[in-house]
């Protein structure tokens, strides 16, 4: 039971990092990305590669993951952010689809469909961290750091610029803001921080493959943000926790037909999300509608 709880804590922390970093661009800059799993995956593959070939030290593998994701996000952000919002959604979807193909085929880096096996545990000051309890401390610490960084940014002039751009791009430009540059920086920061979730994930499971980094994951993370509350501090974490705990709760009820759990889960998700959007469009943590 204890191991089960720690496992859940680790997964919630990792997905919370993804949701918090997606919320950073969705909730504050109004940039809707369907490519968040790409940066999750890139962080995971890069840190796994570095851990196997260079060093498993957190001071090497984690920054490498951030760097790779930041650079690749630039390739998406630079052309796509010069056009209107809808095009960014389409471009991010394109990147997501393209990346899954690359992750499935580039055997030297991703191990292809089979994935990467035997990823060494992350090393902090000479100590290998792999037991779920110890890893939970690490993953929650990283989550807290990400939250602090995002919060500091949101409350700085940079965060105000993002919200100004979300509310009116033309007015923001009329007050001297370089809209494409500000949007690009926000996407790079979001991707680099999302890569931390990937690095944690790779090290924690010691095995990764492309199935964790598909469009389904991008949609799941977006659902976490929306259900929890777009543009709120606690919302993404609440959303991540609910969507990760829900499957276990459903399988806990013995009277439900165990073979149909999967489809039942989908029905509950879909229904829950629809009802939430009708009665609480701001999400669980967000403002009530009309206030």
């Amino acid at each position, binding site marked *: 039971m204890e191991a089960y709880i720690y496992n859940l804590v680790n997964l919630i922390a990792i997905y919370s990092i993804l949701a918090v970093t997606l919320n950073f661009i969705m909730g504050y800059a109004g940039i809707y990305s369907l490519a968040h799993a790409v940066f999750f995956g890139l962080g995971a593959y890069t840190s796994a590669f570095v851990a196997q070939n260079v060093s498993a030290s957190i001071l090497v593998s984690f920054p490498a993951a951030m760097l790779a994701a930041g650079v690749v996000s630039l390739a998406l952000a630079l052309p796509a952010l010069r056009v209107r919002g809808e095009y960014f959604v389409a471009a991010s979807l394109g990147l997501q689809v393209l990346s899954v193909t690359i992750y499935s085929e580039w055997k030297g880096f991703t191990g292809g469909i089979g994935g990467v096996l035997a990823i060494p545990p992350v090393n902090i000051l000479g100590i290998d961290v792999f037991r779920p309890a110890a890893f939970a401390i690490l993953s929650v610490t990283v989550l807290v750091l990400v939250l602090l960084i995002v919060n500091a940014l949101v409350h700085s002039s940079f965060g105000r610029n993002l*919200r100004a751009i979300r*509310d009116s791009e*033309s*007015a923001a*430009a*009329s*007050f*001297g*803001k370089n809209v494409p540059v500000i949007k690009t920086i926000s996407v790079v920061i979001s991707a680099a921080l999302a890569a931390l979730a990937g690095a944690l994930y790779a090290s924690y499971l010691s095995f990764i493959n492309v199935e964790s980094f598909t469009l389904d994951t991008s949609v799941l993370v977006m659902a976490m943000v929306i259900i929890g509350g777009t543009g709120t501090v606690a919302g993404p974490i609440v959303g991540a926790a609910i969507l990760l705990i829900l499957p276990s709760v459903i399988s806990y009820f013995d009277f439900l037909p165990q073979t149909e759990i999967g489809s039942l889960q989908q029905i509950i998700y879909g229904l829950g999300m629809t009802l939430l959007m009708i009665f609480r469009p701001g999400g669980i943590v967000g403002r009530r509608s009309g206030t």
Partner: protein
Amino acid sequence: MSMTQPQQGETLMQIRNLDKSFGGVKAVDDVTMDLRAGIVTTLVGPNGAGKTTFFNLITGNLPRDGGEVTWLGRDIAGVKPHRIARAGIMRTYQDLRLFDGMTVWENVLNATEYGALPIPLGSAARAARRERIERVLERTGLADKRNTRALDLAYAERKFLSMARIMATEARLWLLDEPASGLDPASYDRFLTILREDVAGGVTVCIIEHNLDIVIGISDRIAFLDRGKLLADGDPQTVLNDPELAKIYFGERT
């Protein structure tokens, strides 16, 4: 109303033969004028005369088809809107375009934050900025609403917030697109006071306005646009007393 004679300030902006068409319709047609420091120029004309398009061409929101616009002697063709704003030309929008999800204070504060990355200010600079914003909120009557989201403000308050944003900047030229439309008389007075004070403080204003009380109360000069053409450009009495222009303005086209 007292008539201020246009002072012969330095020419800030030169506009020469400015042209813009939308699908064969000339929105701005060969307009030439100068904007001089310290002068309030009012653009009048019927709806669709090209007044807002004229602003959009100056601020880089729209590319022009032909002509020349210089600011402090420098050609600003093809310069991006945010660069034009930083050069000292700022505008308001007829539909306001407030930062609706942000508070009144954040709206005004953010109007002064140009840089992409946060620049740490010293405590003296921060205090000076805070004082400047306080003063702007006081003058626009928004001091009590500082923590209200722009979205939740009443109509007149939203108009004043639009003014407050531009007042907080250090822009030398203000382009105001119908800033006083729909205001009640008390708000008119407040608006006129603000404008007079800031013009006295060195700001140059170009304003689109339909309300003749405002036009007479504030203008040093009136430019009359119709169907994209600059039909008249001169002191308020001459332009407003021209019977031909009055006919166009009030819809009795000959």
